[in-house]
């Protein structure tokens, strides 16, 4: 069973062990803003609990280094992550004086390093299992479901991020919805415009360079700068047309954010539509025309279905990109989870930053997994 040393596993184990030895497992702060005091794993937990957690982590390390079976590695990583989560939850409960609402117990650097190491071990094991697209989505749903249940259970309520959540629960739901709405809405609009534009670019090679060039230039404008550029014309529009303002079209807010995201989304969609159509077998198109399909039938029945996997790859790029970029929209009052991030930065409240940042990472990761699976399903059917 112990065939030979796994290099990735050895690296992850070493990093985890070093973090556990030299970095704080949790940070105790007297209140939300002051710098905290670092505490190590064995300082914060009763002996038996700390030993149990250490044993689980040791098991994960041993498996990571010496066991090649992907299933065993996945199981060990999951056990390690669970132990880690329970330990940090227990530390939160143990270190919070009863009834105290001011003291903050935050996960420390060692916790995050260990979480990343175990997370990498788990994803590496899942990759080695080569799950089909549907199974990958199933893994994702299990991960999301367990995470939500664990957070809802109240086990982690004493941790600082959850404290921030408790204070901001109503706003969190609203900003999360706004975040998803902005990311998906601008993607939808870009798809509606970008697909026909891509087909047009493919059919009119002379205009292709110009259109793709323009979209390329837009991509190079930094998000903040683009918001600024859009502020003036949208502000002027709102001032001139009262109706526009009534529909929320103003120099600041969600409108310039959505418009900027839409503009950023166009290039990947248009470029991938052109690329996908160009990759379609010439012989298939020639045969379709030769058998009496009209130009529209050739496009809808042959060219677009065959180009779909490449187009979906473009949509995947756009969605992941948008979920990240919506964060910046908060700066001009566009809302979204970025609101917490920038508020947290302003107040030097790192827990508030995490309350915004962690869900953004989870959203982007989920979007990537789901769309990758979709692309693979399509590609398999259309080969």
């Amino acid at each position, binding site marked *: 069973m112990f065939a030979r040393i796994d290099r990735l596993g050895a690296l992850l184990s070493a990093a985890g062990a070093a973090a556990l030895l030299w970095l704080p497992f949790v940070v105790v702060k007297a209140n939300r803003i002051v710098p905290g005091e670092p505490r190590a794993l064995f300082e914060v937990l009763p002996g038996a609990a700390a030993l149990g957690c250490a044993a689980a982590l040791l098991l994960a390390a041993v498996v990571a280094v010496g066991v090649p079976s992907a299933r065993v590695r996945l199981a060990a990583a999951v056990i390690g992550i669970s132990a880690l989560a329970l330990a940090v939850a227990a530390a939160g409960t143990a270190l919070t004086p009863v009834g105290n609402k001011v003291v903050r117990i935050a996960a420390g650097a060692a916790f995050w390093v260990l979480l990343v190491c175990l997370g990498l071990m788990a994803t590496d094991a899942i990759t080695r299992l080569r799950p089909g697209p549907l199974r990958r989505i199933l893994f994702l749903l299990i991960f999301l479901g367990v995470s939500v249940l664990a957070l809802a259970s109240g086990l982690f309520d004493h941790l600082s991020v959850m404290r921030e959540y408790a204070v901001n629960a109503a706003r969190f739901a609203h900003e999360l919805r706004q975040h998803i709405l902005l990311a998906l809405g601008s993607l939808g609009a870009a798809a509606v415009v970008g697909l026909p534009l891509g087909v047009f670019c493919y059919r009119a090679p002379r205009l292709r360079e110009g259109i793709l060039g323009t979209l390329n230039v837009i991509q190079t404008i930094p998000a903040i700068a683009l918001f600024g550029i859009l502020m003036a014309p949208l502000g002027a529009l709102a001032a001139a047309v009262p109706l526009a303002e009534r529909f929320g079209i103003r120099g600041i807010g969600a409108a310039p954010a959505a418009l900027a995201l839409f503009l950023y989304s166009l290039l990947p969609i248009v470029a991938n539509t052109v690329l996908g159509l160009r990759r379609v*077998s010439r*012989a*298939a*198109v*020639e*045969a*379709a*025309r*030769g*058998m*009496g*399909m*009209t130009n529209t*039938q050739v496009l809808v029945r*042959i060219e677009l*279905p*065959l180009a779909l996997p490449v187009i979906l790859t473009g949509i995947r790029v756009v969605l992941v990109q948008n979920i990240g970029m919506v964060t910046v929209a908060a700066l001009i009052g566009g809302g979204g989870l970025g609101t917490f991030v920038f508020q947290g930065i302003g107040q030097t409240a790192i827990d508030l930053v995490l309350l915004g940042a962690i869900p953004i990472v989870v959203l982007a990761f989920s979007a990537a997994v789901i769309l990758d699976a979709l692309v693979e399903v399509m590609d398999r*059917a*259309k*080969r």
Partner: protein
Amino acid sequence: MIAVENLTKRYGAATVVNDVSMLIESNSITVIVGTSGSGKSTLLRMINRLIEPSAGQVLIEGKDTRAEPAHLLRRRIGYVIQGNGLFPHRTVAENIATVPRLLRWSSARVAARVDELLRVFQLDPGAYAQAFPHQLSGGQQQRVGVARALAAEPAVLLMDEPFGALDPIIRAKAQEDLLDIQRRFGTTIVLVTHDMDEAFLLGDRVAVMSQGRVLQYDRPTALLTRPTDPFVSRMTGLADRAMRLLSLTTAGEVAAPGGSSGPQVPAAASLRDALSEILWSGADSALVVDADGTPRGHLTLAAILAHGRPA
């Protein structure tokens, strides 16, 4: 009958097809042969209007092909290209059903036709109907391509280098199959190739093209014995023209009453193959037998040789 009248295609200053007129007989195979760039593919594609002529016209059964929209015309004309052009995202059955579906046949009729064609092309419907093209061998893909072209029972079938991508053994089988299909359905086939052997094997009539013009359009025998242009002689080959001529006549056609102690040759074999048999055996005649093995007559070396020169 397809009447090609003064057909011309120009791209800018270049004339790709230059004032071509020819009559293509129904229920026959007409082969257009030429080197690459001779305009043979362009000529073929002007018949189903994948390319619109610069001048001239095509009449099918007396009706101008421009009398209806091009896509409706094409649904009545089968079309097969090199590399088959099967739709990779559709099953074999869906590929074959393409034109019948465009013509809005009932699904029962489509299913029956697909099933029939798969059997005709020796593809077991149970095993292949739901397969995707990439799961088939090259020869099977080629057969599906022809089946798809024939699905809506077209009177005319256009084929552009249909066997170009096949290896020699599969190509020979595909050529035999095509002759069978032509006999079975009576389709008028126009086939483009650069391969003279293929033209001689398949063509009831052969048109030799060079630089946009049809130099000679005649029966294969006439191309050999009465070439009207030095290029035609070069294409047909001067060195082995006697052997080519022998390959155009079957042993059954020449067999005379009488027996022979020489080798047996099938009546369907060409004189070329019969000559080879006789030379190999060292005899000076062969016994011609029918498919069921009954003797039909004998074939002497002298009788064969008499067919190896212009009459």
